[in-house]
């Protein structure tokens, strides 16, 4: 009951969640690392299936005696696994089909052609087949890639200038994570890569960075307060920022994913393909902003001498506290002390249990009912103010 209540309170926003995301960052690095490794492995061992827009294929042209509609022709092609073929009626009198090479169909080539001929009310030999080159030529890809590289350089400069360069690196790491995962999923599932996939990938790119920047903006705002950083350490402040923006992340991903999910479930063939890439990418983008970009940032920042010194001091203090000689807390704000403890406990345990990971596990459920009482109290106290 109490944990359900707690969940609802967090969901509604009556209280800030206290999830230990940053303290457990090694776990998230391993999770992402494994996912990326699987995707890369698949990309290296299995080639992506490129659609006819990239590869070229066959162009079929024949008179349309029976006045067959685009949808009907597509239906017939779909039966032979060519649902992605591009069908057009030319000048109202001819059917034109672009599809990947028909020789791949083997034995089923002839039945397909005769079915198409029958549908259009003509003889099979009236179907004129020629090879057609790609419509999405190498030039489009190379120009898009060129644009991408320029964009990545500019956006890194922008983030470095607007925030700081370590955030730029963290955002780029998250971005590559998302791109590798999305392409990897295409490789793993053997789905066909179409121009729509490429456009979707570009959308993901924008979304991933957008989502990361929203979180970094909060991190920057919170770390601007030196007293807060001194109290909580850089990692603690980032963790706090993530918790503060958690419901935003949840709601935004829901809001973006709902229409995409709907397209994925109910949209036609072409849209499904597009929605699939978007779904994977947006899901990955939301995940990476919280669980990749922010942890990478912390790892980079904690290397800085000033934060390392701070961490050492806090460790020493925590050790002293653990030894039972707790410093007088009287004059300290109760609220601050609670928060310090929340972050401190984690540090303390991590330091004490560097050889065995067992005690750390206990601490991972930030929502656990044990700690919840204290936190609830402090939240109420804050509200009363």
């Amino acid at each position, binding site marked *: 009951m109490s944990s359900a209540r707690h969940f609802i309170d967090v969901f509604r926003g009556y209280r800030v969640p206290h999830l230990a995301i940053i303290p457990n960052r090694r776990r998230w690095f391993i999770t992402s690392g494994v996912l990326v490794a699987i995707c890369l492995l698949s990309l290296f061992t299995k080639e992506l299936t490129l659609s006819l827009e990239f590869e070229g294929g066959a162009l079929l042209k024949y008179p349309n005696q029976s006045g067959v509609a685009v949808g009907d022709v597509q239906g017939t092609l779909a039966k032979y696994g060519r649902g992605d073929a591009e069908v*057009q009626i030319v000048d109202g009198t001819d059917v034109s089909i672009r599809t990947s090479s028909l020789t791949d169909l083997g034995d089923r080539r002839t039945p397909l052609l005769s079915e198409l001929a029958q549908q259009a009310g003509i003889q099979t030999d009236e179907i004129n087949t020629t090879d057609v080159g790609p419509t999405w*030529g190498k030039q489009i890809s190379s120009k898009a890639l060129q644009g991408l590289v320029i964009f990545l350089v500019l956006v890194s400069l922008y983030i470095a200038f607007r925030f700081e360069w370590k955030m730029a690196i963290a955002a780029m790491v998250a971005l590559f994570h998302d791109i590798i995962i999305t392409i990897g999923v295409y490789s793993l599932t053997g789905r066909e890569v179409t121009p729509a996939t490429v456009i979707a990938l570009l959308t993901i790119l924008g979304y991933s960075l957008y989502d990361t920047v929203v979180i970094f903006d909060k991190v920057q705002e919170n770390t601007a307060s030196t007293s807060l950083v001194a109290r909580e350490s850089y990692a603690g402040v980032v963790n706090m920022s993530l918790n503060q923006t958690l419901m935003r992340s949840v709601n935004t991903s829901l809001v973006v994913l709902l229409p995409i999910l709907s397209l994925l479930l*109910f949209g036609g063939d072409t849209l499904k393909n597009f929605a699939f890439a978007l779904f994977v990418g947006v899901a990955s983008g939301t995940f990476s902003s919280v669980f990749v970009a922010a942890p990478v940032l912390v790892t980079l920042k904690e290397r800085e001498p000033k934060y390392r010194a701070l961490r050492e001091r806090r460790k020493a203090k925590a050790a002293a506290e653990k030894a039972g000689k707790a410093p007088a807390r009287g004059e300290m704000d109760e609220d601050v002390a609670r928060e310090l403890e929340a972050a401190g406990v984690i540090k303390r345990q991590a330091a004490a249990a560097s050889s065995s990971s067992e005690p750390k596990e206990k601490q991972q459920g930030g929502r656990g009912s044990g700690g919840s009482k204290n936190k609830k109290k402090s939240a109420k106290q804050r509200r009363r103010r």
Partner: protein
Amino acid sequence: MKPIRPLVVSLVVVGLLVVTVIVGWFAFDIKPVLGLDLEGGIQVVLQAPDGTPDDVMDRALINIRQRVDALGVGEPSLSVVNNQVLVQLPSLARGTVEKQGDQWCVISGDGKNLGCEAKEEDAKALLQQTGQDRLIELIGTTARLEQREVLGTIDESSPDWDKKEWAVTCPDAADKLKPECQFDALGDQEVVFLGAQPTPDAPEVRYKLGPAEVTGDMIKKAQAVLLTADQSSGSTPGWRVNFELTAEGSDKFAALTERLSPQQNGGVGKELAIVVDQKVISAPTVQDKIVGSGEITLGGTDAVAERETKDLATQLNAGALPVQLEQQSIETVSATLGRESLDQGLIAGLVGLLALALYLLFYYRLLGIVTWFGMAIWAILAIGMVSFAGVLFGYALTLAGVAGLIVSLGITTDSYIVFYERLKDDVRSGKTPRTAVQPSFRKAWHTIVAADTVTILAAAVLYLVAVSSVRGFALTLGMATLLDMFVVYFFKRPTVFLIARSSKLTNLPGMGLSTGVAADHLIDEGSER
């Protein structure tokens, strides 16, 4: 608290914009131009000589793509089939048909009158025709520029007119496909070409020309400019193409103009012919040695001259086609997506939006409804922008574009979420909803601008660098994001501020602003104690 007036004014402005788009749609038929996949378009088949190598065909394709892209962002589909290039483009009816007096007039995208007809259908056909003619002219012509010395000219009155030495080299369209008429073959020969005729019934003039000395591939950059009468200082006013030459071109051009200059020819300069596609466009007399750049005067100041000049500049920038192409056929092509798949997409989109709307209502209560309105306003203005982009630079909405807009809608909703969650944050730290709105908006706005800048940066770079459909995508993305910031600032900000002023709306039980930002719980607990 801020004065109420500016808030109301900004809401009124947003309202007026929405009304404008709706009126434009229903009263003036300003709708988005639909792309090839949704509505079909035309297909032009261009034929190269038999046995043209594949790499030459590929270069021709790249060149044509560059020319088409300069025309707008209508997402063409180009492909090579043996020795043919297939060019498919969405509807070319760029511009509008307007009623002027008792006539229907065709107004081009940049506001020029292209002619009037008595019937509306005829005017629409004219609109389609002008677009089509221009396109075929632009993509099909080789646009090979040559500069040759003029060795002599004659017109019909000359007794030598019928002599063999004055016969025009490769006179017919069919000759284009002969190997001996290709530019490379004629480049170092003396030729006889026709002069361009200012009007169809003007007398024909033939030029005997020396070998080509400077060619179009030596042009670094070409630009169409209009020279007004007072700027022209002696030379003919009107449209002209100014071009800059590469280092190689500059040397050759300097040598050529020096050789033809008055200083080298006893005080009288010789004529230099500017030849485009085997036709002498102009033959000015050289006054002095010229280094680095030059110009091609086409003359005329009207819309036709402007279009011709701009298209020539586009062609020179894209470079000459590596092979001469002959237009084989123009056909209309249907949409590649059947009606059903489009309907399916629309239904799916609506279902998704409905789910989204319900969630927002459930989570943010009154603020959720504000978000509905914000999204609706965004969507209407986005349609307006897409329509406008269609009229202005031929932007055609494809299925990918539609799906992109749906994602952008999600991202624009995020701007609301960022703000509301900020409000919650501030309420949790002790502020009342009333006092929190303004500082929260300031902080949220900061975040939104930072995040949107990244997206706009992506859109701008891709638009400038990429080609074809990627450019179309970049345009949608950029427009959608700018629109997001606009709606956030001029609709969401005043609306939420106004709601916060009214204690009735703020404290509406279960629905109000306080519930939306989870402040009600706090108030309840406070009163309990």
